[in-house]
């Protein structure tokens, strides 16, 4: 009605909450592995290996339970360079989000690649994980991946 006449009330607010995630049997094994610097995938009846360990095969819809070790190295399937990390990004220096197919896996994992220049990156490049010194059984137990020298 009189939008232009009034000074709108505005104020910031936050939604902050610590969610308590239960990982279930399959993802728990994956996270335990990470804390020991191992990467686990799951293998379907048709021998397809999903890494990180998927709970369900999207195509056959079967529940996946067979755990297999993959990686730790992998190949970049795609990447996107973030030259100016934004406030919510975990890395504060330039990095890439990447889809990384770990050695021995048939599917890619989303993670980050850092300690390199954008021009060093291309699809097909080999990468290795950089592990955190303080594992918490989380996806962030891998800090990021680096290019294999």
């Amino acid at each position, binding site marked *: 009605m009189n939008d232009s006449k009034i000074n709108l009330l505005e104020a910031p607010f936050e939604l902050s909450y610590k969610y308590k995630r239960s990982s279930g049997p399959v993802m728990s094994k994956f996270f335990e592995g990470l804390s020991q610097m191992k990467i686990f995938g799951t293998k379907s009846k048709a021998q397809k290996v999903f890494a990180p360990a998927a709970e369900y095969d999207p195509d056959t819809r079967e529940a996946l339970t067979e755990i297999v070790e993959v990686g730790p190295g992998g190949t970049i399937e795609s990447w*996107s360079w973030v030259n100016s990390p934004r*406030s919510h990004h975990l890395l504060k220096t330039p990095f890439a*989000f990447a*889809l990384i197919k770990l050695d021995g896996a048939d599917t890619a994992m989303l993670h980050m690649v850092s300690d390199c220049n954008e021009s060093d990156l291309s699809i097909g490049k080999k990468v290795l994980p950089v592990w955190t010194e303080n594992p918490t059984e989380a996806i962030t137990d891998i800090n990021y991946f680096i290019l294999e020298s």
Partner: protein
Amino acid sequence: MKKVAVVGYAQHKILPNAGALNEVELIMPVVHKVFNDLGISQDDIGFTCSGSCDYLQGAAFAFVEGLSAIQTSPPIKESHVEMDAAWALYESMLKIKMGDADTALIYGFGKSSPGNLDSIISLQMDPYYISPLWPDRVSLAALQAQILLHQKIITHDEMMATVIEARNNAANNPNALLTDQVSEDLYQADSLISSPLRGFDCPPISDGASAMVIASEDKAFEFTDNPIWIEGIDHSIESSNLGSRDLTTSPTIQNAITNLNLKNINFDVAELHTQFSHEVPFLRKLLNLTNVPTNLSGGPLVGNVMMCAGLDAIGKTFQSLVSDQSDHGIAHASSGPCLQHNMVVHLERHK
């Protein structure tokens, strides 16, 4: 099964920050507009369905607030999808086909300005494996763009041409948010947000709302001489496991082409829910639309109201068929990262 037609559509002018307007104040004008255009009221509506997302505003039950814009006395048959309102249209169509209603009001609304859309949309991802890494919506889209470029399915030039064309088309869309022309030089000079995507390749943060009325074949002509028939509508979803998807193609779009028998239809117009420039040439090739005028409204690149832009693609296609007196239109709505969930709608004007 009863045939269903789109009979009316209205869109709020897309705003960069609709702070002055709460949900009710955004929704009410478009609902009134579509009612007034048709000379009807809520009393003529058999089913009402909306699409919205609580997290955009940061308040649980945003849709409940929105419902206050609608006449609900006497109580109405009503539902809500936490999806783009294109899926509210889908649900409404089922209600008409089953005979539970002859008419439906669909509305969608979204305000992306209050929050940080990039970080909010990270929460669409797997909460155990992916969202703790806070991948933003632009970086996720860029992963698909990178592969498409690498495989030469699309080119940088096509992305640039898409942006330039979108801005040109926006000149004809009074509701568009971005109408400034973009030259090749300006595009090339724009910085990369998440490579290979530049700022111009991404949609603007947008606030807005839209409303649509659909009717059964028994009722459509009571409302308009120009009903546009939903000749076909199909949607399906792809895997949540981004790393297991083949991002160079779209099985769900292929599903729609088959299920709707689109191969031999000569479309006059297309509106695609393509939020990023690379998605336009990608989908045009998949849908065989390279010679079909696409996103004459400018599409999401010139105004992208979350939870509404899919419905808008259908609404804009409807408007084109009405105003151009053309026969076949195709509209697309999408949800999720890298076009995970796709809907294709074939609209037809009967001679």
